């Protein structure tokens, strides 16, 4: 074996490649491709997912930075997102980007960069809270329904189907209207409640498959209690699929929060969100597109990034399922 052959080196380093294919690879005209194909799909993170992670890191960092800036009562070099410079003679309406205002100012002469960063906090919190709500409650309900089966499962799934059949946005608008106080907590909880059905279905479907696996039968055979099997054997194996879905779902939730903000039904003004930034900027869109462009770009990039990372994670979860 020639140790200078790179394809061979790679094959040798691939721990899951058995010995037999090594001979075959020597006979193959394109050994490198064969070696790649032999790898586990989704193991290596594609460049798009890396870029996506980079963007998401920026959003998360910016949001935490903005929040803790206020919580700590310190003035880091990020402007007040509510400060209307034109009232105090320090800025004009809809200024173009400058060193004083990186992304310019909005229709009320507020710093667009500061508002964008602060708006990210709202999107982040709503998405994370709602997804967590969905994963925990939807996951547990779905696992329970899928494992106990019978009449209980039918009742639970019928209820879930009813909720799913109702137009989500209409339900959301109704629920938001009921809660007259539109705090971040309330918005997160309302969206989280509506996220539960999808997670329930996913968890139930996975549980149905897992319930017939050998390790579950083994646990049953040694007399393990049903709830213990559910929590220790099944739910942990359902969780990767739920979390992979959660990232994709987080993207959808960010869009939903943006829609609510656009309609004036998300967190109360003057708290900036990407949705209400778009809404406020659209009245002046003929004068300048920038106040609408920045939050739209941020929203698009964040949703795209979450989808990229979610897809990659989903691929990994599938591999794990296959391994089981």
């Amino acid at each position, binding site marked *: 074996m020639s140790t200078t052959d790179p394809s061979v080196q790679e094959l040798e380093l691939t721990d899951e490649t058995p010995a037999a294919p090594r001979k075959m690879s020597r006979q193959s005209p394109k050994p490198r491709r064969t070696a790649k194909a032999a790898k586990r799909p989704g193991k290596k993170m594609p460049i798009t997912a890396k870029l996506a992670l980079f963007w998401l890191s920026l959003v998360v960092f910016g949001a935490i930075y903005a*929040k803790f800036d206020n919580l700590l009562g310190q003035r880091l070099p990020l402007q007040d997102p509510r400060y209307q410079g034109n*009232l105090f003679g320090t800025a004009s309406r809809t200024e173009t980007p400058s060193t004083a205002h990186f992304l310019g100012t909005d229709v009320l002469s507020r710093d667009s960069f500061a508002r964008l960063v602060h708006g990210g906090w709202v999107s982040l919190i709503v998405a994370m809270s709602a997804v967590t709500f969905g994963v925990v409650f939807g996951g547990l309900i779905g696992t329970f329904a899928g494992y106990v089966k019978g009449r209980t499962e039918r009742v639970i799934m019928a209820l879930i189907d009813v909720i799913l059949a109702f137009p989500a946005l209409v339900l959301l608008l109704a629920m938001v209207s009921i809660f*007259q106080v539109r705090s*971040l907590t309330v918005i997160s909880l309302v969206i989280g409640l509506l996220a539960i059905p999808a997670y329930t279905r996913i968890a139930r479907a996975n549980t149905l498959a897992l319930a017939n696996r050998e390790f579950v039968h083994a646990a049953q055979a040694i007399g393990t209690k049903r709830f213990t099997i559910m929590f220790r054997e099944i739910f942990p194996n359902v969780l990767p699929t739920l979390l992979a879905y959660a990232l994709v779902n987080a993207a959808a939730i960010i869009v939903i929060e943006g829609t609510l903000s656009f309609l004036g039904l998300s967190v109360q003004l003057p708290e900036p969100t990407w949705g209400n930034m778009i809404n406020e900027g659209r009245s002046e869109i003929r004068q300048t597109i920038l106040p609408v462009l920045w939050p739209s770009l941020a929203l698009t990039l964040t949703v795209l990034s979450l989808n990229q990372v979610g897809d990659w994670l989903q691929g990994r979860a599938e591999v794990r399922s296959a391994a089981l």
Partner: protein
Amino acid sequence: MTTRWLKYLAVLLSLAMLAAACGSDGTTDAGGGDSGSSGDSEAEAEEPAEEEVVAAGTEAEGDVDTEVAEIEETSVYGGDLVVGLEAEATGLRPWEDSCSSPCLNMMVAVFDKLVEFRADGTYGGWLAESFESNDDFTEWTFKLREGVTFHNGVPFNAQSVADMFPIHQAGSQSAGIVGSAKILSVTAADEYTVVYTLGAPHSAFPAFVERAQIGFMFEPGEAAANPDGFSAAPIGTGPFMVETRDLDNETIMVRNPNYWMSDGDGNQLPYLDSISFRPIPDEGTRLDSLLSGTINAMQTLRQGTIRDTRDANDGDLTLFEFQGNNVGGGMFNSSTPPFDDVRVRRGLTMMNNQEAVIESLGGTGISLPGTQWFSPDSVWYSEKVAAAWPPFDYEGGQAVLSEYINDAARSDGKAVGEPIEFELSCPPDPTLIAAMQVLEQLWSSSGLATVNLTNYDQQTHIDYALGAPPDFEGEHGAHCWRWSSDQDPSTELNRQFAPDTPATAIANGLGEAGAEGTPLFTPTNFFNYYDHELFGNLAAAIQTDSFDERYALYEAVMLKVAEDVPLWYSGHTATLIATQANVVGLSGWTLPDGSLGVGHPAAEGRWGQVFIQQ
């Protein structure tokens, strides 16, 4: 492996809990300690720069002036006009369906009124050839035009008007007007003479029959027989007849071949073959539709759209602008602390930078800062009131508000020196939201007020201001609102400044508890402010038809409002109907007697005399 996922889950849950803990409660902290607020002490300590404010009543460069002039072009028959409206009319029954500017554009094409508003502020006959009152203004007689028929061929006469009265008494929109005008009966004295008998004198009664609710003449037989169907297929005597009505899409009206009215040269009206109304709610889309030629005309009540239309006009459009009396702003609920103290109302009003609010609405150079219920173009406008209205003086406002805050007997029960706290609410319209945030920033930045912003849909917003029986006090604090109209002042002022509760009425000798006559109070006194002398002036103003006397009385009313400031103003609402340049006749229409009509108030076009030049 299981443990690892559980760890992930634990981390996720922890982050969610942290998020919930850090989540804003959605309120605004004037002190700047909460999320979104700056804590920028420099900024907060700094006061707004004195800006050059257009002196009250003076004309801003480029502002909208209301001008009407007689049509000089030669009229042409034919053509189909498509008008873009800012909203759909929910129904076309004058007595039943709530109707604002877009809807009035449609109704005025179908229905005629007994009287119309002239450019000089007086009322002239339309379906009525003449009208007069008895000496004490309790009986009004209208002599009707002969030979007029409804679209279905039924003749229009005094009995038609009398037959409308029971419908007006029951209608959800008209019943209030019947009550305000105190109409006791409507009787046909002969075939073409109708008499309105009032329960109290009203020298400006024709103003009520100029209003949509009881002014538009509809075919009473069809309305009584099929009220629901009437909404989609209304029958009036107007220049156009509804051909098709596709709700939220298009309403097409065709020329009434039997229309009674002719122009000055004897040509039968209307000139157009048809007119279509399309609701296009988005302001930008409506303007684009006009610029692209999809529609021939559009209306708007938004200052920003007027600015954008001016910018986009390369000479292909004619802009019919109107600076009406309608004025934006808001009210303080004077029955609730801290607004029960005039120092609070006055201090906040003085800190209201009207120019900045108007700028946020996109109205710089278009709207004028309001100082009263009448725009500088109105015959009722008073320079004296304009001078009396509290001017923008941030430091002065802070000083006045500080007096209240440092008063040991302050009405809100807070400790001396503690900022006042109140809710500032507006409907969730983007422009109103912008204006509201300017006010919030101005008031909060003083360090003397904690302002909590809220947005509720239009109906909830109104309900909060209206309140519940028996007192109708409302639950609002500082509340966005619009004031005034281009009608006679009595139609708005008398019902809004009457006693706000039965108790107030009884205390001021305007009724007795348990007596047969209900105490004279109004649920539409939204600011819950009452001044007996002011109300006395309003009552006196409808007992004389002398313009000078009435002017003096309304001026006194407005001076009192400027002194007690139960409300605040932003700017007068400029409106616009933009048409393609070959559309003529919107501003120069005339009454049957040849006098010049009011034009296009509140972007309501009179389409009967419009024509399209070749």
